[in-house]
């Protein structure tokens, strides 16, 4: 690797107090600034969102009518597998990571994450893992065993397709684990003075719960993925019943990761919604502590419900009863959150900005996914529903109409902070309504299709089943969603043509990130803020009377010097220096992956690159 011989001497030599070049390719490749890494995460995730969306559109074209001929069975199986894999591992997780990276330091009053170079490493490794998995299309075929890759189908089917699945997800898992540890340490150790745990924004709380879920659930799927890889590549028999293995072992390992994963995907959006609602209702979040504790409760109970994905596997009535009841129990903290959001807008002064619309849309639609989730807990009903389009409807209400709506709300809300430019509000509202109509046209009728007997993952269906009409509606809905995404892209592109004129606090918001300019300077805060309350920034702007009436604080009257401290220059602030090593270390992993699949010498070369990157990293002189 030629790049090994290009260490960061020149960069390190400068030891600049302020970050050096703010533009250019290499400044992005070597950045350790959590804000830039957040943007990299976001851009990558959005790119994969478009890819996964195109796959979904092909799937819907194929299923629009009975006896579809657009996709062959093998291409169809690759597309539905890659759609799920992409949307979960390469879109919702990294898009949440984008918000975590960008916002955690800003919201807790820190200048960066705990381990900036490790942060860059996670980001690059995630990108390379995604590209690695997609390279399979050019190298003999993409994963085709479904996103949960059930053994033994995933271990006996010919071809390397599912090897890309196991090795690719192992890489993505390393990236996520590293990032989880980094962000958890950041939240626990780097909060500004005065920001106690119960003064943290709910988004930060949800971020913290997610990092713990990641840290505890990813090792489980790692074990499963290694076993799957070993079964295929080294002839082990973990999942081969003829040799004493058990296919159900994979299901337990997968879902013991996979169910916490669902909360890994939805809790960030819940955190975003919990930030947006109070701002546009001009009221504090109703029952802050209950929202926080319900999030923690969901995190714990989330590890005790996995076998509700396996009610038809044949675990027996005792296990099915236990997991049915635990699944009902997890509905309770979820309901608590919904009622608290309703309590937040109750008696508020609601401004229907685009972020607010997406937040309200999240609640309205998440309720559908939550309620259909309760019907799965009714185990005998799940004997009918599982593995049908009813399930597909359920988890898309949670993950698209829920998580993606929340994340879009977050994009509209924080766009001015991140890019210094507002997105067009009118266009944003149009996009919201088209997306909401599209989502419900797409995922609403899937409930009916499932109950009327349409299994999931079928490449075609006969006209005799009478499923053509609703399938056509679903396809029309999918293309409606596509239109709304195009409108968003137009809105985003147009925003970059306008001057950077977003004020520091365009929404009259409540949390610390709005105290700094838009976009924030590289060092975030001229002076580390001192926090006196939950929603500290809001309380600098507004006081409350005894009766809870809101009274604006006159400018400069808060007695807080920081609120009018806009002139700090950031001189004398130490920031971590950029580094080549994270990206080099990350680059070795896909090589190891190809080595496992194709030729051993590639794995050796990859390991050398990883070690070289880590070596240079370890001995890179710290900037003074």
């Amino acid at each position: 690797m030629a790049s090994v011989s290009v260490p960061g001497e020149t960069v390190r030599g400068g030891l600049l107090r302020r970050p050096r070049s703010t533009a250019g390719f290499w400044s992005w490749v070597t950045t350790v600034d959590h804000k830039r890494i957040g943007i990299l995460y976001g851009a990558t995730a959005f790119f994969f969102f478009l890819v996964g969306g195109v796959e979904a559109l092909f799937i819907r074209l194929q299923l629009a009518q009975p006896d579809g001929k657009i996709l062959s069975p093998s291409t169809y199986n690759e597309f539905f597998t890659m759609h799920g894999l992409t949307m979960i591992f390469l879109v919702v997780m990294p898009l949440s990571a984008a918000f975590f990276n960008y916002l955690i330091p800003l919201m807790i009053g820190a200048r960066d994450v705990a381990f900036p170079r490790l942060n860059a490493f996670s980001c690059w490794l995630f990108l390379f893992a995604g590209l690695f998995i997609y390279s399979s299309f050019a190298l003999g075929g993409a994963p085709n065993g479904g996103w949960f890759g059930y053994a033994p189908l995933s271990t006996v089917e010919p071809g390397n397709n599912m090897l890309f699945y196991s090795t690719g997800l192992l890489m993505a898992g390393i990236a996520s684990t590293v990032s989880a540890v980094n962000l958890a340490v950041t939240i626990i150790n780097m909060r500004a003075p005065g920001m106690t745990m119960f003064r943290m924004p709910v988004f930060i709380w949800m971020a913290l719960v997610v990092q713990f879920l990641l840290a505890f659930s990813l090792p489980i799927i790692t074990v499963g993925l290694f076993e799957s890889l070993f079964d295929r590549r080294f002839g082990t028999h973990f999942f081969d019943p003829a040799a004493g293995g058990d296919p159900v072992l994979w299901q337990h390992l997968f879902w013991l990761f996979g169910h916490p994963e669902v909360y890994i995907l939805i809790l960030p959006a819940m955190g975003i919604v919990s930030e947006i609602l109070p701002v546009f209702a001009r009221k504090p979040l109703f029952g802050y502590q209950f929202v926080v504790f319900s999030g923690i409760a969901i995190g714990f109970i989330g590890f005790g419900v996995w076998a509700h994905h396996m009610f038809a596997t044949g675990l027996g009535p005792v296990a099915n009863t236990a997991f049915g009841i635990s699944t009902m129990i997890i509905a309770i903290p979820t309901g608590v959150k919904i009622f608290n959001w309703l309590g937040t807008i109750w008696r508020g002064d609601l401004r229907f900005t685009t972020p607010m619309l997406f937040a309200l849309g999240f609640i309205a639609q998440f309720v559908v996914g939550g309620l259909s989730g309760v019907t799965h807990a009714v185990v005998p009903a799940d004997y009918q529903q599982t593995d049908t389009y009813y399930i597909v409807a359920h988890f898309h209400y949670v993950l698209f109409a829920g998580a993606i709506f929340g994340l879009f709300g977050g994009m509209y809300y924080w766009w001015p902070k991140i890019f210094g430019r507002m997105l067009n509000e009118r266009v944003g509202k149009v996009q919201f309504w088209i997306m909401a109509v599209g989502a419900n046209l797409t995922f609403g009728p899937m409930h009916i299709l499932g109950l009327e007997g349409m299994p999931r993952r079928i490449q075609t269906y006969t006209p005799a089943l009478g499923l053509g009409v609703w399938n056509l509606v679903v396809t029309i809905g999918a293309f409606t969603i596509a239109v709304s995404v195009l409108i968003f892209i137009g809105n985003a592109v147009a925003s970059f043509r306008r001057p950077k004129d977003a004020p520091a606090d365009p929404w009259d918001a409540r949390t610390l990130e709005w105290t700094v300019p838009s976009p924030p300077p590289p060092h975030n805060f001229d002076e580390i803020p001192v926090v006196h309350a939950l929603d500290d920034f809001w309380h600098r702007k507004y006081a409350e009377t005894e009766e809870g009436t809101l009274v604006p604080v006159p400018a400069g009257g808060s007695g807080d010097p920081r609120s009018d401290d806009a002139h700090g220059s950031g001189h004398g602030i130490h920031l971590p220096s950029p580094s080549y090593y994270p990206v080099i270390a990350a680059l070795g992993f896909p090589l190891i992956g190809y080595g496992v699949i194709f030729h051993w010498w590639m794995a050796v070369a990859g390991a050398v690159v990883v070690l070289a990157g880590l070596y240079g990293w370890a001995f890179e002189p710290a900037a003074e």
Partner: protein
Amino acid sequence: MRRITRLAPGVGALAVVAAACAPNNHQDSLNPQGPYAQKIDTLFTPVFWIAAAIFFIVEGMLVLFAIRYRHRKGRPQTPPQIHGNSRLEIGWTILPALILVGVAIPTVSTIYDLARTPTGNVLNVNVVGHQWWWEVDYPDQQIVTANELHIPVGEPVYVSLCAAGVGYGGVPAPNECQPGPPKGAPPSAVGDDVIHSFWVPELAGKQDVVPGRTNHLVLQADRPGTYTGQCAEFCGLSHAYMRFKVVAQTREDFDAWVRAQQADAVAPPAGSLAATGMNDFLNGQCIACHAIRGLQVNGQPLTANGGPNLTHLMSRSCFRGCTMPITRANLEAWLRDPQAVEAGSWMQLNPKLSQDQIDALVAFLMTLR
């Protein structure tokens, strides 16, 4: 506009109600046709209405608050700063918990109800999932067929589900599937051992077919008729084509069917095209996988190895996972190129059959009534 479109999520729930009135497609979980499917439906219906009520309450509050508390021009932006209310919190924790207790009790009793092994006049059937067709064995009647499950109406049917079965040869045993190829048998060329899921929505919920395990399912039909089913667990290339049908018959019709199935195949008259076909069948590639009861090679009965038993092929209405009617043209197309008819088919023809062989084999197959 806001008011109307906010209701959009409700369309999903309403549509589910509308679906209950949809025409019967014979694979409809909302149209139970036997006591086991009925038990599930009886449980699901009230849960659905409870969910619908909660849906309308929550969405109603959301819409109401959105309208009522929207910002109006000129109103000071100083709403009351309400931080929470512990009494309300406890209320909306306990109330859903109570509702869920009410749902959990019938749920648990139905789980155990459905898991009970039926007693009395019970028909035992072993169903074996193959890529991508269903083998149906009647151990007590010594019948092996494919893609069609015949049952008598009004009697519970105890289905044992397995991923390897008589297809490997051997005698079907009640309630238990063959664990795999008998010891010493040549390894099967057929990739049978993946997970499938057996689902006839109108007669029962689904149950997975898991290699290495024997799962059980009880189903029963109240009225004679045909009920379609489908593999519900993704099982590879032609998963969508892995369908089957349940034919529910009166006891007399069922007994007559059993007697017909128990009969040996009758060899076609010597010198006919069909006889040539039989000769090709017995001396060619076919017997590597397929068996026909009553025919022998070197004095030995045929044993199936992964392929459907063809004894009374023409008594069935469908093949290729019950997605194609058994017609001369379809059989010819299949024999010409199985992979063109079913993606990934395990039926490898090497060498390919000549047109003469195909004509003769089809003529023979069509005598298997």
